[in-house]
């Protein structure tokens, strides 16, 4: 894929993160000011959010967008160090494999916790 295409998706991922992570930060860090959840990191709040389809889907979307945006940004910073072509390829593949692993793990957790309700009932 061309670098300009990768850069375009980097900006799109940033826009997606702005909305979804903004919502996440509002729930986690502005909850008292906004009058939302009173204990966002307590088990009851966590499981209540995790077992709603809306949050499961948005967590997975946010995970993918944040991993792509972050790892591509970090790759861009490293590439400015005037690295050899072989090193650039190695970094690209490491970030791709690492990013995919983290995405698969995070998605598995999101879906498994969502389905915990069905197991319990």
């Amino acid at each position, binding site marked *: 894929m061309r670098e300009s295409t990768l850069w375009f998706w980097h900006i799109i991922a940033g826009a997606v993160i702005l909305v979804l992570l903004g919502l996440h930060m509002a729930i986690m860090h*502005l909850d008292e000011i906004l009058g939302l959840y009173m204990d966002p990191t307590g088990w009851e709040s966590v499981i209540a959010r995790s077992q709603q389809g809306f949050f499961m889907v948005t967590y997975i979307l946010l*995970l993918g967008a944040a991993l792509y945006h972050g790892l591509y940004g970090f790759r861009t910073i490293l590439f400015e160090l*005037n690295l050899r072509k072989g090193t650039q390829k190695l970094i690209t593949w490491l970030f791709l494999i690492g990013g995919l692993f983290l995405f698969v793990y995070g998605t598995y*957790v999101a879906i498994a916790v969502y389905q915990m309700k069905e197991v319990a009932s």
Partner: protein
Amino acid sequence: MAERANHYPNKLGLWGWLGGGRYGLERYAYALHRLTGMGILFYFVLHIFVTGSRLGGAQKWAAEMGFFENNLFKFGEYLVYAAFAYHALNGIRLGLTELGFLMGKPTRPLYPYRSAVMRQRPVLIVVMVLAAVLIIAGGVDLFE
């Protein structure tokens, strides 16, 4: 030594990456944007594994949260939130600039010259003020 294909000579080395010339306000903002981005990325990778502990049920989750229930981690969490507030708002400005929205129409280079940098500087000021408001609000919410 033969030059690498498609690269200019980079005699500044690591210093060129950290701050190679006369930086203006926008360049410092961009440098802070990159620093906050790397900080958020580092935290995010750990966050994926920490939040994965909710698979283990209420007790595992409580134990995990108990480990982080001290002032050092609370302050670190606040720094991550502050980094996000800055990175997100400055990112909006950078995205708009990247797409050409804050640059104005190109003009002939006739005196008095018009600078695209000064055209988007008010946006930088607004973004910094908004980021400061969000950071203060987050501090009030977290530490009170």
